[in-house]
Structures are given as structure tokens and as C-alpha cells.
């Protein structure tokens, strides 16, 4: 075989592979563009639904997706706080918290009333083992509702742990790391409320960037 035909072979293979890449790239880009608006709408619906789960309906008369606050923590991470208001009074807050589970990050939404009591905690996304760690989802067990009504001092800080670590919260059979991560995240969420309480509750309506 001569070098010329060898090169032609390579060119031909490259063209074939290249045109498949181009073709599927275009198809994917078009689908993405077609689906983007719907995916964003679904994400907003999910967010509203998860807010509704952690903020009781009677608590507010505003749209908590509007007039959110962005609070920057010392480590540079930003937390978006959704505020439930009745008239001009802030009656509750909801914000996303993150815990580390068995298989990566667990994202949760928690709602807290103006006194710092938990209104509810729900899982937004997680990668925990199906059948074991996924009992943190409210669909698969009522474990997560255990947090409702608790606050930073009740139970005391040293009891904000799973039973295996000497705390008050049940772990699951076969899964301790998942609930441990969630308990720690919720506790951090309460600490976040305590640290930012005055700003979160008194800030005027609308955007407030620190």
C-alpha cells in the first residue's frame, strides 16, 4: 500500500467519524434548544412544589419565588433565601441546604418560621442508593418529617446526630451515612438562620445583595 492510499483511508475514516459527530451534535443541539424552555419550566414548577412543601400555605400571601435574598457565606457560597410574607411581615423563610451523602451531594430545601422552628425539610436531589439511602425522600418514608418543629436548641446541639453517634435521629438499616449527612445539613441550616436572622427577617422587600 502506498502512502497516498493510506492517507486517503485515514481521511475517509476521519470524514465518516466527523460527519457522525457533526450530525448528532446538530440533533442534540436542536433538541436541547427545543426542550430548554420546557425543562426550565419544569424546574420552576419543581421549585414551587418543594417550597409549598416546606412553607405551609396559610403562612404567606406573596409569591416566594419573587423578592428572594442572596446571602453570601464566609466561604463564598451563596444561598438564595425565599421569603414567605404576610403583608409586610416575614412569616417564614425557605432555602436550599446541602449535605454530603454516601454517593455525593444531597440537596435539600428547608423552611423555617420567624422564630427559627423548622417548618419542613424536603430532599430536592440526591444520588443515594435506591432502596437504602433514598428513604430520605418523603415519597419513600416519613423519616424526613421528623425534623418539623425542631430548632437549634431543641434538641440540644450534641443530640443533633443519628442514634449511632449518640444523637436523637434514627439511621436506616444499611444506611447511616445518608441520614448522618442530612442531620448535619439541617443543623447547619438552622445555624445559618441564627447567624443571618436579623437581616433575613427585617430586610425590606425586594433584592438585597450584601
Amino acid at each position, binding site marked *: 500500500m502506498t502512502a497516498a492510499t493510506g492517507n486517503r483511508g*485515514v481521511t475517509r475514516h476521519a470524514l465518516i467519524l466527523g460527519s457522525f459527530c457533526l450530525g*448528532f451534535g446538530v440533533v442534540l443541539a436542536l433538541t436541547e434548544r427545543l426542550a430548554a424552555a420546557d*425543562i426550565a419550566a419544569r424546574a420552576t414548577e419543581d421549585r414551587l412544589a418543594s417550597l409549598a412543601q416546606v412553607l405551609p400555605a396559610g403562612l404567606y400571601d406573596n409569591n416566594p419565588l419573587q423578592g428572594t435574598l442572596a446571602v453570601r457565606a464566609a466561604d463564598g457560597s451563596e444561598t438564595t433565601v425565599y421569603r414567605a410574607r404576610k403583608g409586610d411581615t416575614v412569616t417564614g423563610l425557605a432555602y436550599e441546604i446541602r449535605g454530603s451523602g454516601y454517593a455525593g451531594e444531597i440537596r435539600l430545601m428547608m423552611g423555617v418560621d420567624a422564630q427559627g422552628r423548622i417548618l419542613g425539610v424536603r430532599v430536592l436531589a440526591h444520588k443515594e*442508593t435506591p*432502596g437504602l439511602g433514598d428513604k430520605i425522600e418523603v415519597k*419513600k418514608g416519613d423519616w424526613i418529617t421528623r425534623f418539623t418543629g425542631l430548632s437549634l436548641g431543641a434538641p440540644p446541639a450534641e443530640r443533633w446526630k443519628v442514634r449511632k453517634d449518640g444523637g436523637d435521629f434514627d439511621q436506616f438499616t*444499611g444506611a447511616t451515612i445518608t441520614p448522618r449527612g442530612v442531620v448535619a445539613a439541617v443543623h447547619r441550616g438552622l445555624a445559618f438562620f441564627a447567624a443571618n436572622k436579623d437581616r433575613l427577617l427585617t430586610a425590606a422587600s425586594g433584592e438585597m445583595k450584601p
Partner: protein
Amino acid sequence: MTATTTPLPQVAATAQQADYGRIVRDGLWDNNGVLAMLLGMCPSMAMTTSATNGLGMGLATAVVMTASSLLVAVFRRHITQQVRIPVYILIIAAMVTLVDLAMNAWMHELYKVLGLFIPLIVSNCLPLARLEAFAAKEPVLPSLVDGIAMGLGFALALTAIGAVREILGSGTLFADASLLLGPSFRFMELHLLPASSNVLMMILPPGGFLVTGLLVVGKRMVDLRAGKAIQMGGAHSAE
């Protein structure tokens, strides 16, 4: 490059009528992706902690296998031997991404249940093996049937593994099936054994190996009794 370009096998099946019954039997039982070829072991063990999870993963895989088999068969004369593997992987990955995007946008309830499983299909070697062993050489229609049959066989095997592990490990069968299939399937959700008799190991990774192994043995015993020649593991029809 030493290009002794092997011409694509110009298939015999173009001349003779494809044996669809054979293809379906192969996919569902005789040459089952999991229980005979021992392919796709990662999802078969990782996603089968319950029958519902197995079924969900299996069905999502079946959709991707069907679509990619069809595409490879359509383009089989344009894909050269040298670049076929990257092209197959490209096709599978594109199908998975399309399914993922489409379900997220237009079947959002189902996506919330299955979404976790879909990206994992890319790491399953069964679709790749079937593209290489079948769709690359056969006409469009038999390839489509092979994709469907192999995909359903995979779903069947995963559901079976999931069912055994779930009954022994959690004492339930098809728990949360209504989340996957809709509220009208709530009747499938059974509670069979009390929590005290659960064998936790069965829903942990070792249970996956044990149950898969036992089901492989079970399938071979059935085949032996039926007097069939045992098909040894591995994608024997692939190179």
C-alpha cells in the same frame, strides 16, 4: 496505518428471510444479555435493589438499545471497520442524551423516577455488544427486532434479579411501582414478608452477585433439562 480494509460483512440475511422468532427467543431467553452473555453486569447489580428499579432501568435501556440498533443498521454501510466503535459509542451516547432531555422536558413525572438511571446506560456494554454483533451486519428490520428483544430480555432479567433481592431484602415486591408506572399500578405493590425476616445483605452489593449468579445457574439448569446446548458466557457472537 496498515489498512487491509476488511470489507463489511455483506450479510447472508439479505438473501434469506430473517428468523424473527429466533431473534426474539435469543433476546428474551436463549442468549439473554444478562443471564447468558453476562453483559451489562454493572447496572444489573447496581440498579436491582428492588423490582421496580430493575424494571425502570431495563425499560430505559430497552429504549436506547432499540433506537441505537435501528440507527446502526440504517448507517451500517457507511461506517467503516476502523471507526465503528467510536461511531457506536457516539450513537449510544447521543440516544441516551436525547432520551434524557426529552423525558426531562415532556415526561417529567417519569423522569423524576427514572432520571437517576438514564445516564448510567452509557456505561452498559450490552448495547455496544449488540450493535457490534448484530446491527452492524443485519438489515434494518431484524436489527430493530433484535434491539427490542435484547432490551426487553435485559429488562426481564433485571426485574427478576430485583424481585428476588427485594423480597428477601425488604420483604416487599414492586414497592413504589406506582411512581414508575402510574397510580393504576398500585395493585402490584405487595408486602410479603415481615421486616424482622429481611436479609439486609440481599439489597447490599453482595446480594446482587449472589442473586445474579443463582439466576444464571437456574437458567442453565432449565436449559439442560430442556436438552439445549449450554451457551457459554461472553459475547460469543462478537469478535
